[in-house]
C-alpha cells in the first residue's frame, strides 16, 4: 500500500485526512512545524491503525529547506496532500505588508515551492498523486478577503496547470475546494450548515478523489452552483456588491 505525505499536518482537516487514509492502511508522513504535537499524533495513528507513521519538520515558508526536506523523507510517499494555508486578516493585510506577505507565501509561494520539487520526482517515477486544498475564495476576488482569495486563486491556477502538465506522465493532480470548514481558523465565525463541511467530510472527499482520480471537487455540492452564479455576475454590477 502506498504512503501519504501530509504537508501542514496539525490542522483539524489534516488530522481527519490522516486518520481517513490510515484507516485504509496507508502509511503516513506528518510534516509540519509543531513536531511535539505531531509526534503525539504519530503514536495515535500507529496504535489506532497499526500503520507506520513518521514526523518530519516542515516549514512552508522556509523555501531553501524544501529540497532537503523532500530528499530526506523516511520513505517515499506516492500521495502528497498539501493542506497548509493561512486565512489571515484582510483589514490588517491591506495596511500591513508583512501580513499580506504571510498570506501569499502560506497559501501560494510556499505550496508552489514544495510541490515543484515533488512533481519533478513524481514525473521521473511516472506515478504519484498530488492533492491541494485550495479555496472557493479563489474563484472570484471579493472585498472581504481578496488577499487570501488571490493567493488561493494563484494556487488553484497552479494546480490546474500542474494537472495538465503531469497528465502524460501518469501523475494525477486534484484541486479541493472545501467551501466553509469548521476548523480552528473559523471557530469564531457563524457559518451556515448547508455550506459548511466538517473536517471528516473533507477527509472522505479527499480520499474518494484520490481513489477515483477526480480533478476538481467541491466538498459541499451547493458551492458548485453558488460559485457558478457568483462567477457569472457581470463585473459592472459585481463591483458594487458588499461581498
Amino acid at each position: 500500500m502506498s504512503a501519504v505525505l501530509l504537508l501542514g499536518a496539525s490542522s483539524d482537516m489534516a488530522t481527519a485526512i490522516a486518520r481517513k487514509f490510515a484507516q485504509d492502511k496507508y502509511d503516513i508522513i506528518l510534516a509540519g512545524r509543531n513536531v511535539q504535537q505531531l509526534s503525539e499524533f504519530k503514536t495515535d495513528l500507529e496504535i489506532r491503525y497499526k500503520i507506520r507513521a513518521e514526523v518530519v519538520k516542515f516549514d512552508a515558508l522556509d523555501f531553501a529547506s524544501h529540497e532537503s526536506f523532500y530528499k530526506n523523507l523516511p520513505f517515499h510517499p506516492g500521495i502528497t496532500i498539501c493542506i497548509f494555508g493561512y486565512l489571515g486578516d484582510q483589514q490588517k493585510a491591506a495596511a500591513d505588508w508583512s501580513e499580506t506577505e504571510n498570506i501569499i507565501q502560506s497559501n501560494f509561494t510556499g505550496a508552489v515551492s514544495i510541490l515543484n520539487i515533488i512533481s519533478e520526482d513524481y514525473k521521473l517515477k511516472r506515478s504519484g498523486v498530488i492533492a491541494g486544498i485550495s479555496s472557493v475564495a479563489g474563484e472570484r476576488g471579493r472585498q472581504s478577503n481578496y488577499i487570501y482569495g488571490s493567493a488561493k486563486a494563484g494556487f488553484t491556477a497552479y494546480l490546474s496547470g500542474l494537472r495538465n502538465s503531469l497528465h502524460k506522465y501518469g501523475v494525477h493532480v486534484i484541486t479541493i475546494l472545501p467551501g466553509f470548514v469548521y476548523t480552528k481558523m473559523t471557530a469564531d465565525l457563524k457559518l451556515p450548515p448547508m455550506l459548511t463541511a466538517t473536517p471528516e467530510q473533507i477527509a472522505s472527499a479527499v480520499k474518494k478523489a484520490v481513489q477515483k482520480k477526480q480533478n476538481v471537487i467541491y466538498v459541499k455540492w451547493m458551492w458548485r452552483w453558488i460559485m457558478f452564479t457568483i462567477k457569472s455576475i457581470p463585473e459592472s454590477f459585481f463591483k458594487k456588491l458588499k461581498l
Partner: protein
Amino acid sequence: MQMKKKIANWGNYPVMETNEVEFRSINELKQFVSSSTSAIARGNGRCYGDASLSDVTISTLKFDKILFFDKANGIFECQSGVTLDQILDVIVPEGWFLPVTPGTKFVTIGGVVASDVHGKNHHVDGAFSRHVIELSLMLSNGEIVICNKNKRADLFEATCGGMGLTGIIVSVEFQLKKIETSYINEKKIKVDDLEELLELFEANKHYTYSVAWIDCLKKGKGFGRSVLMLGEHAKLNELNDAQKAKGALALPKKKSINFPINLPSFVLNNFTVKLFNFLFYHKNFKKEKHSIIPYEPFFYPLDAILHWNRGYGKKGFVQYQFVIPFENKEGLITILKKISDKGWGSFLAVLKTFGEQTDLISFPIAGYTLALDFPVRNGLFNFLDELDEIVLQYGGRIYLSKDARMKANTFWKGYSNSKKFTSVIEKYNPQTKFQSVQSSRLSITAQ
C-alpha cells in the same frame, strides 16, 4: 477564540448560553485556563444535567490522541477527549476490554474519571477509579501535575468523581481487563416482583455483570416485575461455529439509527413498553434464557438509537438516580411505590447493586441503585425533592452526574465527605476558577 453557543447535556435540561472553546495542545489549554475566571471541562456532554456547563466550557473533544497501549499487559493511556467507543475499537481486537463501562460508549475518558463511573460489575470490580494507574491534570494556575492513589492522593481522590472541580484532566492511564472473546455469555431471567428480584441479585452476586430493568408502572401484585440480565465475558469454547468464523475478538458491526427530531415523550415510552413486553411475554422466552451475544447489545443497548434523548420532547428530562444501603431496602420499596403511584417517570427503571466503596466523593456505596427518567413538567421538581428526603432518611445519595435540580443540602447531607472534598478543592483550585452551574447550585463553589 470563543463562540457564544447554546448548549445542554444529555437531558436537554437546562439549556445554557456559554462560550465554548476547544484545545488541541497543552499550551492552548493553558491560555484558556489562565484567561478565564469561571470555566469547566466538558467531554461528550453525556452527563444529564448541568455538571459540564459554565461561563466558559472547555471542550476536550479535540484533545483526542491515544498515547500508549501495552498489548501484553493491557495498559492504556490516552488524552482526556478520547471516547470509549474509540478505545474499544483498538483494544477489543487485541483481547482487552474496559475494566468498567457505563451504559453508553459515547463518553470521554475525562468524563469517565470525573464522574468515577460505575458499570454493571460494580459489586465485583468497583468503579472506574479503582483501575486508574495515573492521571495528569491541569490545575487552575496552569500547572500540569500527576496524581494517583499514592502520589498527591488527596488530589486524585477529589478528582475521581469530583465533576471537574479540581482541574482539567489531560490524560489518563489505566489497566484493561483481559478477554478471550468479544462476546457475552448472557442469562436473562423473568422476575415476578421486587421481592424475588432482590433475592435473585443476592443469589447471583458471583456474576461479573448484573442489571435489571423494572416495570415502574406495575402496582399491586407483580409490583417490581422485571427482567434480570446477568453476564460474563464468553470463553472461546462457548462460541458457536459462526461466531468463531467471524473471529472470536471481532468488533460488532456498527449499526445505528438516528432519532430524527424532538418527539412528544409518549413515543419513547411506548417504545420501551413494547420492548419490555416483548421480552416479558414472548413465547420463546421461558423463565430463563441463555445466549451468547456481542458485547454491544449487552452493554450499550441504547447506543443503537443515536439521539434517543430527543424522544423526551423539547422541554427535556432529568434522570433520577439514587443509591440506598442494602440494610435499608424498605427505602427502595417506598420510593418505587411513590414513583409508580405518581406515574410520571419512564416506564422502565434500571436497578443494580453496588459493592463496597469508600472513596472521597464517588457516588457508589454498598447498596441498591435505581435510575429512571422523568420528562420535565410542572411540579416535577417538588416531587423529586420529596423523593430526595426519603433517600436521605434512608442514608442514601443522588448521583451528581445525572443531577440537574437537587437542593444544596441534599448534596451536603448525602455525601458524607463533602466538607473534606471542598477543602481539597480550596487547596488546588483556590479561586474556584473551575466551577459549573451545578457546583454553584450545590454551593460547592461560591455562587
